[in-house]
């Protein structure tokens, strides 16, 4: 019988990260889609960095930033009472950075491709920007939102390098499935590693399949 804890921890991490990312990603994507600011390319680049950067690099710098021995890490641990290194909270924050482009980019693309007349029509009808976002814009980019949510979730499940750097390998706290697999392989427990791997494989396949089915219009009722 395998230890389910790493799997449960993985999904807990992915779920919390995705929910937080959704609330963070929508305003960020909104700003990126509509702003004409000069610093927009810089922000866009920063958001996309995790796509190309080795996860260990992100992990390494977050490790430095969160370290209680420097000002920021110290401030976080003193004022917020959060220890971000080798803790679950730290993993959540690191995952948010790591999966940010997977949430922001689909939403941004969805917003950009939505005809601006919808927004303008709502403004002319006297509705605020917030109400327009909530009632008009978001309901009309549902496929993009779904893509963002699922990709962020799946990407967080697949996290390894960042977790290893910042979380380590503490059972029940930071030992997620991907780390557990590595652990088992190191200990030559191939069959346990295989069980974990297969579960992750099947779950991520199913999640992605559902997204493509919904967004592709194969399950029309769920999309409407």
């Amino acid at each position, binding site marked *: 019988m395998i230890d389910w804890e790493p799997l449960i921890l993985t999904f807990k991490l992915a779920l919390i990260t995705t929910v937080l990312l959704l609330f963070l990603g929508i305003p960020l994507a909104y700003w990126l889609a509509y702003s004409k600011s000069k610093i927009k390319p810089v922000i866009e680049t920063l958001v996309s960095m995790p796509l190309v950067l080795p996860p260990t690099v992100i992990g390494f710098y977050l490790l430095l930033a969160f370290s209680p021995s420097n000002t920021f890490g110290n401030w976080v641990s003193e004022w917020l009472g959060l220890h971000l290194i080798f803790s679950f909270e730290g993993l959540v924050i690191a995952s948010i950075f790591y999966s940010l482009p997977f949430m922001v980019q689909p939403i941004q693309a969805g917003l950009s491709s939505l005809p601006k007349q919808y927004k303008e029509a709502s*403004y002319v009808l006297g509705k*605020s920007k917030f109400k327009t976002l909530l009632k008009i814009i978001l309901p009309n980019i549902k496929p993009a939102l779904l893509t963002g949510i699922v990709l962020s979730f799946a990407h967080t499940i697949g996290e390894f390098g960042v977790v290893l750097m910042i979380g380590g390998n503490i059972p029940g706290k930071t030992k997620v499935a991907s780390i557990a697999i590595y652990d088992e392989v190191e200990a030559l427990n191939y069959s346990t590693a295989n069980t974990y791997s297969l579960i992750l494989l099947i779950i991520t396949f199913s999640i992605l399949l559902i997204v493509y089915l919904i967004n592709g219009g194969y399950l029309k009722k769920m999309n409407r």
Partner: protein
Amino acid sequence: MIQLLLHKKLHTAKGMMPLDIDLAITPGEFVTLYGASGAGKTSTLRMISGLLTPDNGKLVVNDVVWLDTSKKTNLKPQQRKLGFVFQDYALFPNMSVLKNLEYALEKHQDNSIITELIDMMELGELQHQKPSTLSGGQQQRVALARALVQQPEILLLDEPLSALDTKMRIKLQDYILKVHQKYKLTTILVSHNIGEIIKLSDRVCLLEQGKIIKSGIPSTIFATHQMSAKFQFTGEVLSIQKEEVVFIVTVLIGTNVVKVIAQESEIANLTTGDTVIVASKAFNPVIQKVL
């Protein structure tokens, strides 16, 4: 009274074009902006609604200053009380017809207006459908109804009928005329269709390169270069008016509008929208350079 004084440098496909609009509109008037595409018609409507900010200018509506760049006053689109019908309707795809109309309601506004508009625009049977399932003409009616929910005093129509066939056009022109009169609206229409302009508007402004080059009663503006000769044309009947003992039939031939005097017997089975032949027996055709 609406006073418009708008200046903006527009970036068009042909390069920079200064838009200079100086226009006064009396309450209840139906004004049409006519001109080639890129002449600045839509930009003018967008500036009135606040969706586009002019470089400098002034916009006063019934003694309320909506925009005055010299005093840095610029009301947001949300604060300007007007109805706007977009060229492609801009109905919210996620809402049914009824929900589209209800969304337009102001806070605490009585929703009896919705029932009234649904009845007037004959949308009763369509009210629970999504916009994507409606025909162009139906969508247009919904867009028109939605623009009227807040009972604005000003209605802006941006080429609302350009995507519709002739039959649907004529029907919707009647709806527009009906609401214009019923709600005592001041209406500003952007249109390319001369027949439509003559039928609907009190005044037409010809826009060219961002400036109003001519303005006046549509039938006179469009009929100035008409000469009759020994020719034969086919055209569409725009209107039939009784003048003393004869009837004057206004016919659209190509893009020109011609007035023809007719006897009662000749107009007996003629109605607006009919295709007719206009023939003339003049012996000395006049030739004159146009513009």
